[in-house]
């Protein structure tokens, strides 16, 4: 609903049939059904995040904004990035809404991470090669995780795309979305969501934010 209201874009949801059946159907959404690849975990729970590499072939659009289901767009900020000259854009920073700077990811690997929660890409030869590289790295992920000395051994799209972009661009850097994704760390419990924002509980305190996009990492909300 937020995507429809704020971004005013056609929406395609990639999910499995079981999830589709368990949610209220919305007529304005196109669905693409996949059987998620299982086996990846986070904090001991199944983590359905391994299929991001399929975004290129699953997207029916010339220009696509990919967004995790736990990203709440309370603004139209992202819509404008569909009208750029860039083939592929991804943010490389996140902003901790609790003020603790918990996303200082460089301590956890030799490669600066991107935040593949949000991607913008065009369908063309260059981007096709990026996604082919993503698939290749995914296939040999344990090797690349060791090579880049990534602390987390489970598959994380943020590292997968960071590695692919670094490799395909010849270790020279790549274009980025200049956004710091406003993010709630996993220890924050979302207690209320409205049309304009959300409230969360952390350390026995309730905080809220309005008219700002929010990426919610607490997987009790959605396991993606």
């Amino acid at each position, binding site marked *: 609903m937020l995507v429809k209201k704020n971004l005013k874009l056609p929406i395609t949801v990639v999910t499995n049939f079981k999830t589709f059946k368990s949610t209220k159907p919305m007529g304005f959404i196109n669905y693409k059904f996949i059987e998620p690849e299982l086996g990846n975990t986070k904090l001991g729970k199944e983590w359905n995040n391994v299929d991001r590499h399929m975004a290129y072939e699953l997207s029916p659009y010339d220009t696509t904004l990919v967004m995790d289901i736990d990203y709440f767009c309370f*603004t139209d*900020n992202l819509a*404008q*990035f569909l*009208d*750029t*000259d*860039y083939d592929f854009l991804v943010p490389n920073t996140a*902003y901790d*809404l*609790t*003020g603790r700077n918990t996303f200082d990811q460089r301590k956890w690997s030799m490669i600066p991470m991107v935040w593949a929660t949000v991607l913008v890409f065009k369908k063309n030869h260059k981007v096709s090669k990026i996604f082919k590289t993503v698939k290749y790295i995914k296939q040999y992920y344990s090797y690349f995780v060791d090579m880049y000395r990534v602390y987390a051994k489970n598959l994380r799209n943020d590292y997968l795309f960071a590695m692919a972009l670094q490799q395909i661009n010849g270790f020279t850097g790549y*274009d*980025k*979305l*200049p*956004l*710091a994704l*406003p993010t709630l760390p996993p220890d924050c419990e979302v207690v209320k969501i409205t049309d304009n924002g959300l409230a969360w509980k952390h350390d026995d*305190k309730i*905080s809220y*934010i309005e*008219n*700002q*996009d929010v990426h919610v990492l607490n997987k009790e909300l959605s396991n993606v």
Partner: protein
Amino acid sequence: MDIGSLKKESDLSYGIAVAKRNALEKAQSRLIIVYKEHIFRADSQTINLVKTLGEVHSSPFYIVDTNDNPVEISNPKEFLQILVQRNQEAISSYHQMSKTFEKKK
């Protein structure tokens, strides 16, 4: 002041500081705009650069976007207007939020 009151004051101040920082970050996000298929920040630096080049250099002139790619600016007046409009939209919202924080102190 006893330690309980001090902790309460400190927690309140921390909460206000984080909320204010979040409001500033919200404004920073809002400052990002797309113009002529390139990405810019509608901040004081970009506004001053475009205004200065518009005044002392004939059109078109060239500046770099957030990914350091060069962009031709052929209508500086139009671009400046968009930059200023977005800048003031974001900063006035931040100003409004700041006023609510002052009341909480």
